[in-house]
């Protein structure tokens, strides 16, 4: 297992020797500082708290500063935990740094980020509904969901809709994980990772990069 925090730089495409083109997302990954090591004795679970990218000193809040001081580092902008079932204690120390080297040998990664905001979206865009016919007497109802409930589907709900009925509403700005990106390239000099395909969020958005959970 390996995990790093990073930033989406953007997308491009690369060719291999046979001329096969691969679309890749470039991620600036790390170096991440370990801000805290949590153990079962002290916190009830095992984790390593990672921090990525410095904050301008004038914008730092006092409690954050105190927290960072404990590990002898500076305040970080993007902080996330890397959970373990059991902590391999010697390897991770507060104040030490992790960089893209921990991904060497890894074939596939999962990438989590906050997706691009889509605003108030209708059911066709938000949930992939089919909409209504374009013609045959349809008036002003082309992109609606149709009827919301029927006797069979809402049985036992006392005339109300079932909770969680999919409707129009705010879309995007959610935490999204896209899985099993092939790790194409690791650039140790620039702390870059190139992964196949698109990852959630805008260019410049913060992402978590983990070894793939399912695909090995």
């Amino acid at each position, binding site marked *: 297992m390996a995990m790093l925090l990073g930033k989406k730089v953007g997308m491009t495409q690369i060719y291999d020797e046979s*001329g096969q083109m691969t679309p890749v997302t470039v991620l600036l990954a790390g170096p991440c500082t370990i801000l805290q090591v949590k153990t079962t004795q002290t916190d009830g679970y095992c984790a390593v708290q990672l921090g990525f990218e410095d904050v301008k000193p004038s914008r730092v809040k006092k409690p954050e500063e105190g927290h960072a001081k404990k590990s002898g580092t500076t305040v970080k902008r993007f902080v996330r935990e890397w959970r373990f079932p059991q902590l391999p204690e010697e390897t991770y120390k507060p104040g030490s740094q992790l960089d893209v080297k921990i991904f060497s040998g890894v074939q596939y990664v999962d990438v989590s980020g906050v997706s691009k905001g889509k605003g108030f979206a209708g059911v066709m865009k938000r949930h992939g509904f089919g909409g209504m016919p374009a013609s045959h007497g349809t008036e002003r109802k082309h992109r609606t969901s149709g009827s919301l409930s029927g006797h069979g589907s809402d049985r036992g709900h006392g005339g109300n809709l079932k909770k969680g009925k999919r409707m129009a509403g705010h879309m995007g700005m959610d935490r999204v994980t896209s899985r099993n990106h092939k790790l194409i390239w690791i650039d140790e000099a620039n702390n870059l990772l190139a992964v196949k395909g698109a990852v959630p969020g805008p260019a410049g958005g913060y992402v978590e990069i983990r070894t793939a959970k399912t695909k090995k």
Partner: protein
Amino acid sequence: MKKDLIDAVENKSRKKEIPYFEIGDTVDVHCRIEEGGKTRVQVFSGIVIARKGRGMNEMFTVRRIVSDEGVERTFPLHSPNIVDIKPLRSGKVRRAKLYYLRERSGKSVRLPKRHSKHTATT
């Protein structure tokens, strides 16, 4: 900064030198093709009617007439399968996309010759 980082990845497969050619040029495109386990170089020659995309994404379209039928192929500029591009003749054109050639046949397909440095020697 963003540009530099993307460059770092692209430089892996970016071509160092790309022959200079323009819209309206008649070119020979030397492309590597695999055939029954063997690779050989095939030449496709015609008029460059479009270049689109930026950087690593750049593509160009070459049109030629094969037995009275127009044939167009679009190539990725940076693909390693495009071994060479040789501009042979420059054409006098007034736009960046020569899609109007698709509606033409016979004599009117030909572009008037233009003298240009990059095709002067050939």
